[in-house]
């Protein structure tokens, strides 16, 4: 049987076969003889999750707009499918052509969370490409990593030939252009191509071209380029003008239900807030907005090309968009008639209003979510979450009067300077929310009330003011979780928390250096996949792997990093300066807040990257 037939045949024997079929409406088909560069865009998780990722949609569209490039999608087969493919000798294939991924010119991985690393490596193996960059021959595809995790690429440096640092729309095209040019001119070699890319394309990091040496205590002694024509610091790339950069208007329409099965409209990039734990808020700076005119045109076009009945406005904090009323009014002028609803996720507590709630008829459920992040004002000042208890009470009051009886509150535990008092503050705040509900006159509360406290564990992330902080030990986190539970004495309050063990492993990979390569290689050898899925995550397995590869997890988690230490990710310039981050850290310990960029510029340094925008100078 041919590969495609064998593939179709095993589909009858696996769960959710609709994940693997391709052939969706709007999927881009090209003739392979007409293209000069075949790009396999891999998402190291399931189809349902990968199809919902906006970054992948954008880059798939950008690459396919180029007539000589054919970009195809690849997702991780679920474990039952992986098993079958192994048994019957079927390699990893791309959705559009069904061709083996190992035969492509370039393979790109979207790295959204650290716990996808094992799955990414499993996919490289399934593609029959050598796992380690240094073992790949001239005929092997070039493997590129990008996405938020590329801001600290060091733990996976051994497996990737090249990283794209920052927004990918332009860089990926430049990489493909260079590849095609060198092939056409007959001067392509792996080494030559990577060297040329590292030298001439801004935002390209080729880990193999840099040496890292360590002190005896395991900290980094030096990070040195091997050649003097490649940059010592890799500057992140941004798109200058979001109004003119292409945006996907014909997204691939999945047959099966995906996580975000709706129109996704990206409104702006960056964030004016500066919460001190938030990586996205720092690395996506400077703030660049799209104009309502462009957004409305795109929305209409997307509606006509998809038939979706929901438009979701996406950004880090939608209410900070400077022209939100204009945008909403404009969209509402036709969405109601078309029976399309608007949804505004990521609403901030302090900007939640009755008007906004009414506009977003799309909030169909009886619930609403807010993220105070910390239980006391003191700790909220430390993390620079500039919302007060009054803000929260006002917001939930509006929600209750608007008929929403379920409130979900997001918090974090293990934050720097946190005490048991701050933990108790979480329960206290939830109780006050319940109290706010019962302050409504009886006829206004015909439905019940439920408050869910959802607590995740703080992970100190690169390029945040808290990047040097230590993570609470596992035992401390357990104590805090137990304390919180003991503080809750109201039957309307439900408490859920994230597994502290997951956060510890996340921290190791988020903050790790190249020494972790050995551990990940071993994990790949042991067949570990889908760590982001509770049913597959195993703390003990990772601890065992760390022990066998000489890794001390505490070095990256509970130790904390010295202010003068060379950090694994120091070779990346994300725009925001280290001096700014240090000063923000200092202010955190002084419990001083920093105003948003809407009030005035705080001099974070990201404006040096340029960009057409509103807030920076």
């Amino acid at each position: 049987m041919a590969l495609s037939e064998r593939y179709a045949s095993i589909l009858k024997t696996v769960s959710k076969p609709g994940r693997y079929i391709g052939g969706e409406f709007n999927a881009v088909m090209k003739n392979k003889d007409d293209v000069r560069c075949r790009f396999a865009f891999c998402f190291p998780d399931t189809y349902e999750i990968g199809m919902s990722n906006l970054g992948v949609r954008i880059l798939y569209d950008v690459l396919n707009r180029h007539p000589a490039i054919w970009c195809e999608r690849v997702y991780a087969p679920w474990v039952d499918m992986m098993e079958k493919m192994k048994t019957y000798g079927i390699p990893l294939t791309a959705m559009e052509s069904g061709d083996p991924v190992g035969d492509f010119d370039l393979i790109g991985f979207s790295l959204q969370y650290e716990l996808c690393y094992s799955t990414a490596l499993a996919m490289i193996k399934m593609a029959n490409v050598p796992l380690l960059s240094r073992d790949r021959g001239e005929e092997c595809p070039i493997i590129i990593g990008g996405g938020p995790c590329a801001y600290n690429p060091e733990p996976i440096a051994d497996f990737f030939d090249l990283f794209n640092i920052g927004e990918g729309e332009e860089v990926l095209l430049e990489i493909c252009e260079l590849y095609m040019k060198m092939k056409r001119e007959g001067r392509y070699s792996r080494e030559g191509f990577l060297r040329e890319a590292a030298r001439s394309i801004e935002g390209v990091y080729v880990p193999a071209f840099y040496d890292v040496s360590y002190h005896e205590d395991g900290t980094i002694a030096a990070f040195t380029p091997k050649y003097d024509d490649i940059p010592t610091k890799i500057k992140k790339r941004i798109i200058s003008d979001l109004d003119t950069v292409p945006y996907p208007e014909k997204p691939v329409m999945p047959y099966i239900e995906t996580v975000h099965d709706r129109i996704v409209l990206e409104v702006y990039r960056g964030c004016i807030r500066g919460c001190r734990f938030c990586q996205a808020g720092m690395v996506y700076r400077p703030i660049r907005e799209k104009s309502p005119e462009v957004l409305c045109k795109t929305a209409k076009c997307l509606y006509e090309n998809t038939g979706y009945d929901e438009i979701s406005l996406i950004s880090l904090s939608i209410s900070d968009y400077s022209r939100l009323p204009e945008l909403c009014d404009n969209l509402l002028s036709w969405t109601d008639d078309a029976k399309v609803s608007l949804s505004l996720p990521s609403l901030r507590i302090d900007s939640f209003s009755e008007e906004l709630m009414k506009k977003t008829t799309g909030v169909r459920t009886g619930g609403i979510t807010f993220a105070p992040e910390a239980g006391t004002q003191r700790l909220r000042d430390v993390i620079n979450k500039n919302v007060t208890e009054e803000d929260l009470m006002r917001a939930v009051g509006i929600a209750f009067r608007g008929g929403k009886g379920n409130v979900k509150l997001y918090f974090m535990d293990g934050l720097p300077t946190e005490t048991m008092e701050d933990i108790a503050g979480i329960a206290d705040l939830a109780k006050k929310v319940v109290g706010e509900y019962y302050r409504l006159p009886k006829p206004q509360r015909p439905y019940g009330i439920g408050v869910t406290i959802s607590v995740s564990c703080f992970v100190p992330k690169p390029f945040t003011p808290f990047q040097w902080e230590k993570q609470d030990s596992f035992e401390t986190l357990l104590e805090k979780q137990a304390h919180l539970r003991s503080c809750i004495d109201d039957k309307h309050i439900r408490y859920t928390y994230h597994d502290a063990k997951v956060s510890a492993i996340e921290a190791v990979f988020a903050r790790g250096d190249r020494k972790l390569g050995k551990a990940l290689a071993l994990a790949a050898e042991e067949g570990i996949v889908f760590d982001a899925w509770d049913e597959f995550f195993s703390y003990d397995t990772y601890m065992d792997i760390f022990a066998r590869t000489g890794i001390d997890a505490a070095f990256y988690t509970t130790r904390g990093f010295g202010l003068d230490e060379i950090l694994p990710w120091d070779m990346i310039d994300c725009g925001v300066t280290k001096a700014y981050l240090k000063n923000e850290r200092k202010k955190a310990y002084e419990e001083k807040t920093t105003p948003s960029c809407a009030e005035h510029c705080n001099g974070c340094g990201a404006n040096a990257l340029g960009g057409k925008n509103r807030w920076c100078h």
Partner: protein
Amino acid sequence: MVSLNPNGFYNLRFRFRKVGNLQFVSHLDLVRTFSKIAVRTKLPLWFTEGFNPKPKLVFSPPLSIGVESETEFLDVRLTQYVDPETALAAMNQNVTEEMRFFDAYYAETKLSDIAFISYEIRIQTAGVSEELAKKCQETLLADTVLAVKKGKDGEDKTVDIRPGIHSLTVEEKDGALLLYATLSSDSSSFLNPDLLIRVLKEKCNVFAKDDPTEEFLSVKRIAMLDKDMKDFR
């Protein structure tokens, strides 16, 4: 004759296929997909009332995952009359090859009038011969054909599927078994072709190897019939 339904809508019927990889799309997913396809066509759709309005779509009996079809029906409610040919073209612009639309017309029958469905079933398995084909046919046309079926309560129960088999032939062709079966399909006595396969597995030793790259099954609907055994329209 096109007349406005007393409820205030026009019922436009489409006949389409669902072949190839689309056999792996469940009925539920198909329904969701069609809501979006219908919106893309810009036809004057009649929406359901309520908090979450959706175009009103009615389908012929659901297909199981793993079954293809050359003939499926979809009824779409419209608020205005649209030329069927125009509607047909609009549909075809919004689907892929595996889901072509063949006809569009204002229907006078109800989809619940479908009484029988004909299937073409190909079984690629070890030891195919004319004798095996004969044995399979005899087995399925015996006076009683007992099959184990999952009941609504999740419990297995044994049922006689013979009354649901209207006609059936099995032959050997190109090294495979080729079955043609016309099965009862009104809502009270719908017979899933999967039960036939189960009987053959048990009694005639097909698919004994359990290797999907060597043994292969394809099931396809080829016609829908009314109670007089005429092509349903």
